[in-house]
């Protein structure tokens, strides 16, 4: 055990003193903030400053839709209404769309029985956000026109159609309610997913890379004369895992110091509806460690069979598969954090850490799911360590060529 701790301490100190640790500690959160910020602002500004034209048979309907579009606070439209519009007017407006003089044309035709058909012409087929906004404005405009056509005054129609906003509340296990914001929860879930994914992959790959480097520098022969291969592997895992935990602790402390007072004031005033709990604070590092041990143990075994960093690189896409799976499941988790898929992915060891963490951010899963996912991860780590330590014991002393599959199977049998 003394040697394990000595090896862990050496790994820890070498990494902590390294430039890569300092850069990643500063740059990784900045990168995540930049990504989320870019996502937020591009999302908010999507469809902004669009110059649209409405061509309709009915002037009041065209005007009602124009007002609806101009009232949309999340989008900045300049809208021109042409009503009543002739065939020539419509053709002329389509030409304006072609020449990019305007961004789009909403053309409405009302049949004799009052049924309306609408077409939207633009040069971009993928602008679904503008199409959704137009659909909303069109239906509200039609409704208003029909209400006024039925005898209501415009003010009465407006009063009838006045929108009600929904305040979202999140209730905790103790029955206490707190303000919640769907968008903030979404960003929190994504941020937590990124914060757990990136260090696990980063340190897992770093561990694998350092094994290949040490194999090439022939340090293992010296180390094996004083320590067992299992002690070497355990020391490396503990040391590098400690670096990851230190980095997470620095991020949490920095976030508390920098954002704490401002966040606290906003939470008290109810302006910012985001909740963090102690449970999340404890389970986040725990899931980081479990995820890190699982991935690092797996890649350590593989790294011991590689001769060069390039060979190792071939295996790296394997690491990304569970991450892609977890990211792909994010919309399902956001829609229903307790769906069967979300529960299955939080119990499946390779995706458990990546799914459980964003789930926690949305709604605290039941205790049995934590117990089952942690238990399954521990069992998997044990299994992967058994497999990897056997490859590691033989692989670190094998030089000169990449091991073939039959050779790997023999290594597993021998050691």
């Amino acid at each position, binding site marked *: 055990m003394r040697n394990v701790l000595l*090896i862990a301490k*050496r790994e820890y100190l070498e990494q902590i003193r*390294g430039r890569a640790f300092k850069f990643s500690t500063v740059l990784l959160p900045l990168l995540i903030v930049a990504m989320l910020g870019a996502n937020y602002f591009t999302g908010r500004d999507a469809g902004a400053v669009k110059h649209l034209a409405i061509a309709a048979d009915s002037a009041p309907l065209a005007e009602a839709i124009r007002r609806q579009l101009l009232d949309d606070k999340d989008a900045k439209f300049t809208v021109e209404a042409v009503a009543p519009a002739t065939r020539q007017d419509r053709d002329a407006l389509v030409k304006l769309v072609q020449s990019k003089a305007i961004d789009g044309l909403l053309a409405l035709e009302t049949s004799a029985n009052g049924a309306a058909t609408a077409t939207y012409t633009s040069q971009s087929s993928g602008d679904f956000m503008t199409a959704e906004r137009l659909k909303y404005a069109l239906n509200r405009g039609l409704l208003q026109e029909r209400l006024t056509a039925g005898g209501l005054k415009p003010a009465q129609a407006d009063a009838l159609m006045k929108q009600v906003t929904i305040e979202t509340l999140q209730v905790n296990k103790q029955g206490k309610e707190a303000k919640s914001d769907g968008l903030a929860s979404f960003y929190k879930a994504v941020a937590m997913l990124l914060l757990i994914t990136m260090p696990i992959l980063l340190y897992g790959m770093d561990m694998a890379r350092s094994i290949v480097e040490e194999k090439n*520098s*022939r340090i293992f*022969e*010296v180390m094996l*004369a*004083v320590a067992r291969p299992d002690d070497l592997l355990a020391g490396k895992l503990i040391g590098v895992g400690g670096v990851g935990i230190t980095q997470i602790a620095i991020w949490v402390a920095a976030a508390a110091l920098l954002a704490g007072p401002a966040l606290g004031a906003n939470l008290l005033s109810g302006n910012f509806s985001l909740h963090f709990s102690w449970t999340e604070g404890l389970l986040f590092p725990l899931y980081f460690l479990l995820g890190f041990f699982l991935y690092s143990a797996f890649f350590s075994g593989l790294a011991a069979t590689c001769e060069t960093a390039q060979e190792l690189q071939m295996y790296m896409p394997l690491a990304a598969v569970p991450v892609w799976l977890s990211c792909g499941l994010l919309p399902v988790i956001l829609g229903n954090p307790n769906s069967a898929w979300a529960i299955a992915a939080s119990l499946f060891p390779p995706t458990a850490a990546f799914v459980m963490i964003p789930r926690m951010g949305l709604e605290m899963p039941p205790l049995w799911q934590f117990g089952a996912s942690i238990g399954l991860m521990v069992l998997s780590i044990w299994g992967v360590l058994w497999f990897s330590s056997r490859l590691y014991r033989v692989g670190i002393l094998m030089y000169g060529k990449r091991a073939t599959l039959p050779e790997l199977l*023999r290594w597993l049998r021998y050691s």
Partner: protein
Amino acid sequence: MPVVELAGVSKAYENKVAVSDLSLSIEAGQMFGLLGPNGAGKTSSIRMMMGITIPDAGSIRLFEKPFERQSLERVGYLPEERGLYKKMKVLDQLVFFGCLHGLSAEEARKRATAWAKRMEIAETLDKKTQELSKGMQQKIQFISTLLHDPGLIVMDEPFSGLDPVNAVLVEQTLLELKSQGKAIVFSTHRMDQVEKLCDSICLIDKGQAVLSGNLREIKSRYERNRVIVEFEGSSAFLNSGEVAETKNYSGHAEIKLKPRGDAQKLLHEAAAAATIYRFELVEPSLEEIFIQTVGGKADA
């Protein structure tokens, strides 16, 4: 007292026999040379001695006890494939290895500083290993092998990469350690160093010990039919009817006499042709014994 004993040790990798039924014993205060051509099984034998690989058959005893990892704290090992942590500072590295061998950090630091002075690399202690030359790194590795004052020192090719000045420094250190009662095992291709330093040898070929024992005794088994001549003048005497083979290095010749060749007659012929500074009748060199024993296939 045997410090290390191998009894009937064998090791095979897949279809290749690396070591077969090897037995040897090394005493305290003895310098032991493990010789053999490339791929003969020297490194495999050393790896088993160090517990890096486990023998398929036979037994290994260290310090009069069956092999146990605890005993390795009393062993210093310098492998053929040198390895140091490149980004670590030299002193930190030496302290780390000292601690792995059971020293306290403070004691390891004290000893590392003293050894660095002795090996004339004190100025490198604060530098990163990757900043140093290969020879310097070799000396650091040498220190890390000796830092914990081991009773058994195992060195695989300890002189490779060293210039003549540093090779002498390492030789002197090894002789001093031997005089302190340490058992030293080293494998090398440098026969001149084995002749100079070793008390006993074991020559391995194809995994088997083909020649072993006290170096003087082994050499005395061979007839004194070699002549070393240092001369100035004509080398015509090298074509004498007494001579079987010669190696002539301009003024220095190594001659193998024919069976029943007359050394005195050769001396007269040489004196008539050239000025003779040295004429010495000797046993065959270890290199000749090596080549003869492994069937001329050695690449040493």
